[in-house]
């Protein structure tokens, strides 16, 4: 086939060339869509009043992430009338700048939680996490009874805050040392409830 002069014939006979062309073509999409967002990420100012998660809420958020709550609950109110009517103002980029990983979700087996904070009492949230069907008989959410029994580990939370500071979250030394007092004798349930009650709060308080 040495006489084959079709323009693409060389690619079809040369492994190196084929691989290079594939690499170039599959890189374009990501470069075009991710790079501008990544390079401009520092220009997205946090929403007014939004601070990095304090020690207790961070611990709660990590419980939320560990239990993979995102598989049934979104944290993204889309810019659609029926969504804002049900859940509140649309979620903005500026509200999620401290979210690692993001928790927008892809499926709502349960409702969106972006602005769940303050909607129910702490006591309701606690009972609902331990035994959802006691409060909402039609719910198909699992019980999470072990959250009540597990104590928080302040050293671990401080290590987490230090890593987040390295990634750019503006934690002060005082924020990190405060983790000891804030999480002492607290359970994972306390932390998760604190996280949930803080969801969407800055936007509500904003003028």
């Amino acid at each position, binding site marked *: *086939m040495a006489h084959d002069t079709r323009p693409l014939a060389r690619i079809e*006979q040369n*492994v190196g060339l084929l691989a290079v062309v594939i690499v170039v073509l599959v890189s374009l999409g*990501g470069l075009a*869509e991710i790079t501008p967002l990544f390079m401009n990420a520092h220009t997205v100012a946090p929403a007014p009043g939004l601070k990095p998660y304090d020690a207790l809420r961070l611990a709660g958020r990590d419980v939320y992430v560990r239990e993979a709550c995102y*598989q049934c609950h979104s944290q*993204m109110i889309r*810019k659609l009338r029926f969504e804002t009517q049900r859940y509140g103002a649309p979620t903005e980029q500026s509200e999620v700048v401290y979210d690692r990983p993001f928790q927008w979700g892809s499926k709502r087996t349960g409702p969106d939680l972006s602005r769940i904070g303050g909607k129910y009492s702490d006591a309701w949230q606690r009972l609902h996490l331990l035994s959802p069907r006691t409060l909402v008989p039609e719910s198909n959410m699992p019980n999470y009874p072990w959250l009540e029994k597990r104590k928080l580990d302040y050293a671990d939370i401080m*290590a987490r805050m230090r890593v987040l500071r390295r990634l750019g979250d503006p934690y002060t030394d005082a924020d990190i040392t405060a983790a000891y007092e804030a999480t002492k004798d607290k359970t994972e349930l306390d932390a998760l409830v604190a996280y949930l009650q803080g969801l969407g709060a800055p936007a509500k308080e904003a003028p």
Partner: protein
Amino acid sequence: MSSAPAAATQSAETYDDHIVRLFLMAAAVWGVSGMFAGVLAAAQLAWPALNFDISWLTYSRIRSNHTFGVIFAFGGSALMGTCYYVVQRTCHVRLALGGLARFTFWGWQLAVLLAMTTMPFGITQSKEYAEPEWFIDLIIAVVWVSFAVVFFATLLRRRIQHIYVANWYYGAFIIAVALLHIVNNLAIPVSWTKSYPIYSGAVDAMVQWWYGHNAVAFFLTAGFLGMMYYFVPREAKQPLWSYRFSIVNFWALISIYMWAGPHHLLYSALPDWTQSVGMSFSILLMMPSLGSAANGLMTFSGAWHRLRESPAAKFMVTALVFYLAATLEGSLMSIKSINALSHYTDWTVAHVHSGAIGWVAMITMGSLYAMAPRALDRPEMHSKRAMEVHYWLHVSGLLLYIIAMWAAGAMQGLMWQATNPDGSLKYSFLASIAATHPFYVIRFLGGLLVLAGMVVMAWNLWHTAGAARLNQIKPIIVPIPEPIPEPEPEQVPPPLPARG
């Protein structure tokens, strides 16, 4: 195609099929366990008491065992096994670097086993389809690079000048998955069990769905198209409908797919321009997707009697029909106004499973049924009747599943949007949960049928291998035919056989 005339001279070299058999058996085991996790998760959504208040059996912990189990353990083993089989046949050469190839098998099994034993204990990044924590991601990266080395080294040793198109798809799958896996999993570890991604908020969302969508594109599409382009002509017993068309579709598919990720984030806080670009490319994607499906289906043109003779061919044709349907549906769902209704509902679940149970699982099963007897040196599968039973169990399970989820999804979307004459919302969220219950029961039954079919397949493979195991004392010798003389340039692609 690589099939040589029967009179071909034989080389002293043999195909390395031991590695293929290992992956084949792993695929059967992971297929059953991954689908079992799915059936359990489906049952838990219908009857929450089945969570048993045990943390590691709870839905939110076990669901990723289903997705990871079927995609990466079952699909991954099937892809790597068929890839090693196909690259040897189409290059007329033994697999390069046999030791490294063994390492890719054991390394991959270790990685998926670690993933599936850590995720239920909450060791997860909670990034969809990229759940395993950083140390498992590192193992996956090393194994994947080794896989690439074995594959491309084999291509370099080939005895056929032209690289057959199936290898292009396998090659693109290997390269793109490496890129996606590494970029999406960049994270700083806190401890063995916890890490934070270097991206946050909207950037993390963009990276994750660039990954998530292209895991579908390159793991679940390009890889399985590689399988399709080898095994469909084999099973149809005639050449591809159009070789040139397969190449056009290849370049279009791999360049367009990578742009489509943002359609998972429509109307979200992701910047609007990104959403519009993602949606436009998703619609363009319809062309190469329909093209590939048409090329596969048309390959059976004039050979439809094969559907009567071979259950494997039946699996393949049904797979191609579902590939066509699912990709068409996917492009439609990426249109913003349709997505407003479908997103966050069970419609997405229906779409995914029409692609996964319909296309991916069925092309895999068809290909494995076609490959297993050859790799095991048997004239045919142990039981043809069991293959038929598997086919009908699988198809009826699939239909029950997706019809239930389509209905549930459309219902949820409409209920969430419905308003009273005064403009207030008509239904509480809870009303949509209650209304979904019957559909979850039907979905569970559908999943159960698919799982039952997979068990039948595993049984059939076990007995096919059983006959071969008796011969395992001496290795199975598969002679490599000497390369056929290259056709003249005018004959590329070779002319189609005349049809009566």
